């Protein structure tokens, strides 16, 4: 499972990351937490309000900081993180922009 924290590195992003880290530890999950700070990549998820929490390429929350309990619920509910058909994963583009586009 891949957890992504989207945000420019503001204090709120760090709080969200800490909560996610704690949730992962408490569940003993093997989820990996990645930070995404590139604005171009962030808006590809269809959001503008950061910080956002993305689990398996699915936006779970944005513009707020879910607490540890809520993140644990997200992580343990397989229904919640099943990708839907009308939710295309953002392009990891084939162009030479180095992820900037």
């Amino acid at each position, binding site marked *: 499972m891949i957890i992504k924290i989207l945000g420019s590195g503001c204090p709120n992003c760090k709080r969200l990351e800490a909560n996610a880290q704690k949730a992962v530890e408490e569940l003993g999950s093997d989820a990996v937490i990645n930070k995404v700070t590139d604005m171009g990549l962030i808006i590809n998820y*269809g959001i503008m309000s950061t910080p956002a929490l993305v689990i398996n390429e699915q936006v779970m929350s*944005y513009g707020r900081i879910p607490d540890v309990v809520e993140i644990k619920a997200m992580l343990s509910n397989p229904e919640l993180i099943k990708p839907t058909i009308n939710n295309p994963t953002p392009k990891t583009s084939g162009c030479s922009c180095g992820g900037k586009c």
Partner: protein
Amino acid sequence: MFYPIQLLADWLSYSVFSIAPKTLLASAVNFFIFDTIKIFILLGIIIFAVSIIRSFLPAEKIRNILSHKHKIIGNILAALFGIITPFCSCSAVPLFLGFVEVGVPLGVTFSFLVSSPMVNEVALVLLFGMFGWKIATIYVLSGVIIAIVSGLIIGELPVEHLLADFVRQNQAKNAIKLPQMNWPQRLNYAKSYTWDIVKKVWPYILIGIGVGALIHGYVPADFLAKYAGADKWYAVPLAVLIGIPLYSNAAGVIPLVSALTEKGVAIGTTLAFMMAVTALSLPEFMILKKVMKTKLIIIFASIVGIGIIFTGYLFNFLIK
């Protein structure tokens, strides 16, 4: 409405701190206690209420509404939506990119960019608390009108080529379905957002009210009239220039300015100053350089600046 707070302030200053009433010190202390309590109660209630509204209308939803709107109606809606959205300079770039990417016209995006920081709930609470509802209403209405008109003007100008290249290349994507908050999440969000804001602004507000209270108590009335009264033509543009670098302290500036107004600064000058503090922010301009050329930022700032100066003169003329 604030009578119980006045009683509390009287009791604290005359009985608890046992300052003799009717002295300059008593007047300053009483003023400080009354205003502080009043402002923080108002801040708590209003920010919480606005956060709840925003949990139904996040920027992501607003841009989808705006992307289907044409000029004028789009500008009006953008200016109105700007009232409920929070804005710090760090969100300027994602908002700008996000709006342009779903096809919101440039002029409409600018209306939003002007109104969002200028007409915000913190400024509104402070204006209402320190100046009363009339000035607060004038501020909101003028702010919204400046946002609409600036956006309309920029929309008419040939400025597309002044956007950073990658903004124009960013093509519209499929609307991605985003999760909605439920009620416990909304309440939680509103609670923590309110707390965040109050935590961030309280020192500025205390300092602002504190210095304001000193001015209130010790500076003679009309002291500033000869420098910044309504008949001084240079007062308005000067106030706007001074306001540009002060954004982070907006919360503290308003109580301070309210005291200055008492001492003879004309009300239009005061309004123009506060608008400049919130709408023309140097840090925001620096950040916007990532998505547009300096020339466009200067055009944007000049149009809004002229609007603010005009508003200042107008109310100096209308309200004596």
